[in-house]
C-alpha cells in the first residue's frame, strides 16, 4: 500500500489547470481566473504540451522508521507509466507497470500480480495525472472552488474539489492552492490499493522551475499515521523510452490468467466451491478471445502433429512390411 502512495509523488507534480465549473464564491476570485493563474504559475512558458516522456527520480524516507526510499518514475504519453520503488537494502524492489490498458506489480523473486478493478482504474487516473500535457479539465469534468480560504502551513489557500471521470470511479480529491503563488500546496486523496482504499494527504513545497515547468521538489505524504518525505533527485523530459518498458518482461512468468484449478485437498472437495480467481475475474473479453484462438491454434498444431505421427507410423509400417517382403525374398 505504501508503494501506491509513493507513486503519487511522481504523478501529481504535473498538475496543470484549465477553466472549469464556476460556483461563485467569497474568495475574491472566480474559478475561471484561478485556474488560469494556476496554469500560468506551473507552466509559464507553455511547454508542457511538448513533453512526451518524463523520467524522474526521488530520494525519500519514512519518518521515525529509518527507511530510505529511492523512487524512479517513468511516463510516456499518452498514458504509460512505470514506477520502481526501492525501500531499504533488504526489501526487493517493487515495480508497478501500466501499459495504457493493463497494469501489473512485479516483485523480483516473488512474482507478478496483475492489477484489476478499482486499483486498475486508479492506475488509469494517475497515468492521466502524470501527463504534463493534460489540463485539469481533461482529467476532472467537475471542479468546484470552495467559498472560503483555508490555511495550509500558515498560508492562505484556495480549496478545489475535483471529480474525475465517472468511468474511473474515483472519489473526489481536494487540492489546496496558495493564493499568492497559485501553486498547489496540499492534496487530499483516496488511494486505491489491492487491499482497499487508503486516505492520503500530500504537502508540496520548494517549487523550482526545471526545463520550463514549475514543479514541487519536496513532498510530504501522511497516511495511516506514517509520514513519508521525498525530494526530487533528477528529472528528464523527452528521453526516448521504448514501449516494452511498460510491459511485463519476458523473464518474469506471466501471472495466472486461467480459471482457478480446483483445490485438491480432500477437505476442499467436500466444501463449497473455491472462490473465483481474481486473475480469472480480470480476464478481459479480448483476452478470452485471444486465449481461445491460442488454444485453437495449439489444438490444430497438436492434431497436425498427431496426423504427422500417425502417417509416419503408417509409413514406418509400410517400410516394415516392405522389409519383411524383402526378407521373404531373401
Amino acid at each position, binding site marked *: 500500500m505504501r508503494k501506491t502512495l509513493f507513486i503519487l509523488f511522481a504523478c501529481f507534480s504535473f498538475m496543470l489547470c484549465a477553466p472549469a465549473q464556476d460556483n461563485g464564491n467569497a474568495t475574491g476570485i472566480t474559478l475561471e481566473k484561478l485556474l488560469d493563474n494556476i496554469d500560468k504559475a506551473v507552466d509559464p512558458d507553455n511547454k508542457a504540451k511538448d513533453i512526451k516522456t518524463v523520467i524522474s527520480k526521488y530520494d525519500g524516507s519514512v519518518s521515525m522508521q529509518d527507511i530510505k526510499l529511492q523512487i524512479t518514475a517513468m511516463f510516456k504519453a499518452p498514458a504509460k507509466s512505470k514506477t520502481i520503488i526501492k525501500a531499504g537494502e533488504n526489501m526487493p524492489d517493487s515495480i508497478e507497470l501500466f501499459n495504457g490498458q493493463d497494469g501489473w506489480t512485479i516483485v523480483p523473486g516473488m512474482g*507478478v500480480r496483475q492489477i484489476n478493478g478499482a486499483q486498475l482504474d486508479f492506475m488509469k487516473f494517475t497515468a492521466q495525472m502524470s501527463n504534463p500535457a493534460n489540463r485539469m479539465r481533461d482529467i476532472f469534468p467537475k471542479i468546484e472552488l470552495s467559498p472560503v480560504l483555508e490555511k495550509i502551513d500558515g498560508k492562505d489557500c484556495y480549496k478545489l474539489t475535483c471529480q474525475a471521470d465517472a468511468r474511473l470511479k474515483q472519489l473526489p480529491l481536494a487540492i489546496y492552492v496558495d493564493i499568492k503563488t497559485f501553486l498547489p500546496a496540499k492534496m487530499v486523496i483516496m488511494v486505491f490499493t489491492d487491499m482497499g482504499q487508503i486516505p492520503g494527504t500530500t504537502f508540496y513545497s520548494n517549487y523550482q522551475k526545471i526545463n520550463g515547468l514549475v514543479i514541487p521538489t519536496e513532498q510530504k505524504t501522511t497516511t495511516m499515521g506514517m509520514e513519508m518525505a521525498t525530494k526530487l533527485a533528477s528529472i528528464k523530459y523527452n528521453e526516448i523510452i521504448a514501449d516494452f518498458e511498460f510491459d511485463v518482461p519476458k523473464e518474469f512468468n506471466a501471472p495466472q490468467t486461467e480459471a482457478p484449478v480446483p483445490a485438491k485437498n480432500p477437505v476442499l472437495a467436500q466444501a463449497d466451491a473455491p472462490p473465483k480467481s481474481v486473475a480469472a475475474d480480470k480476464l478481459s473479453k479480448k483476452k478470452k478471445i485471444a486465449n481461445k484462438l491460442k488454444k485453437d491454434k495449439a489444438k490444430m498444431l497438436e492434431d497436425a502433429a498427431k496426423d504427422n505421427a500417425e502417417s509416419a507410423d503408417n509409413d514406418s509400417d509400410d517400410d516394415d512390411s516392405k522389409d519383411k517382403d524383402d526378407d521373404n525374398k531373401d
Partner: protein
Amino acid sequence: MRITKLVLLFSCLLLAAAADAEVAHKQDKASDSFSRHAVTVLDEVWTNIRKSHFDQDFEKNYRERIYNKYLPEIKKAGNDMQLAGILNRMVKEFGQSHIQVLPPVNELEIMALHAAEKNVEPEPLNTQDVPADVGIMPCIAGGKLCVLRTINGSPADAAGIRAGDCIVSINGLKLDTSVNSYIPWDTLASFLLAGMPESKVSLTTVNSRGIQKEYKLTRKPNGFNWFKFGAIPRTYGAFYAEVLPGNIGYVHLTAFFPDQITSFVKAVTGKLKDVSGLIIDMRNNVGGVVILPQWLAGWSCPQVIKMGKLQLKEATLTPSSYPQQQCFKGPVVILINEGTASAAEIFAASMQDSKAAVLFGATTSGKCLPSQFLRLPSGFRLQTIFGNYERENGQHIEHLGVTPDVPVTLKLSDLQNNIDSVREAAAKYLTQQLAAKK
C-alpha cells in the same frame, strides 16, 4: 581555646554537612535530570502508541489506568535499561502483542534480558554482513527445550548433536523452561546460537540416555542474510526444504522475510516441482513483513486466498493472495505450534479459512497484530501496533491463536528416536489422501 575548638568543630560539622548537602544536591540534580529524561521517553512512547492505535477512545481507556499508574515509578528509574523494563511492564498492560520498547542498546542484549529476566553477558552485535549459527533448529517438546533438527553438514551435525537432545545452556546461560512458560525459549535459543561467522558458542545438552555433553562450536554462515529494514532490530530467518518418502515435499520457514519467500519460490519451482503433496512447516515461525503471506499463499495454491481484514484507524484493508502460474497445485498441510506467531498465523488461518490447507500441530501463540518499529527522538525504539486483525472467518487471532484441524503433540520420546511426530502425521495424512485419490 575551648571556644576556638568548639568553633572549629562546629565549622567542621558545618563543612561536612555542606559536603553531604553538595553530594546530595548533585545526586538530586542527576536524578532530576534522569527523571525528566524518563518522562520524556514515556511521553514519546505514549504519543506514538496513541497515534497509530486502533482504539478511538485511547486516552479515555488507557491514560488513567496505565500512564498515570506507571508515571511515579518511571520518574524513579535509574538508567535506560531500568526505564525500558518499566515501560515494557507498562505496555504489557494494554494486553496486546507487538507493543514493546527497546532501549538504545543492542538487540541481543535486550532479547536475552527480556527473556531470561536476568543479567547476562551477551556477545557484541554481529558486524559481519552475513549471519552465522551452528545449524540447530530448536523447539519445545514435552515441555523441554530441545533440538528439532540439525542441518546436514552444519557444525552441530558434525559434532554429533541430534534431534531430541535437550538444550540445557548456551554460553553459560541456563535455559530452564520450567522457570517461565511465557518466554519463547526456542526463539531465544536461536538468537543465542547465532552470531558472527567463526565465533564460538558453548552449548550444553542432555541426550536421551541422560548423558550431559558440552560442546564448543564454531558458528558458520548459514546461507541467509540479515534482514535489516528500517528501525526493525536486525534479524534473520531460516529456510529448509527436502523431499520426504511418498513424494511429499517439506519446507520449514522460520520467518516471513523476503529471503524465505524467494527460497520457497525456488523450492516450489525447482527441487519440489514434482512432489504430490506439500507440508509447509510454520512451527516457531516468528512472523515478519505483513504483506509477505500474500505472496507465499500465491505460490502455495492456485486459488485466491482471502486473508481477512486489517482494521486501521483510517481504513479497513482486505488483503488476498496473488496466485502464480507455477504455484504448487496439490494438497497442502501446514504445521503450527505455540511458537507460530504474527504473519505466520495470518498465513495459516487464511489457508485454513479458504480450505486450501489442513493444519496439523498445536494452537498458535495468538500474537497477531500489525505493527511497526519507530525510532524515537530519545534513541529508544518502539514497536507499536497500527491496526487490528480479523481473519476471514470473522474471528480474531490475537489472544486466541489459530487452532489446528488435527491436533498433534510433538513428543520428546519420538524426537529422540528421530521421529518428528507432527511432520510424520502430516505426511501420513497426505499419503493416504493421495492414495485415496488414485
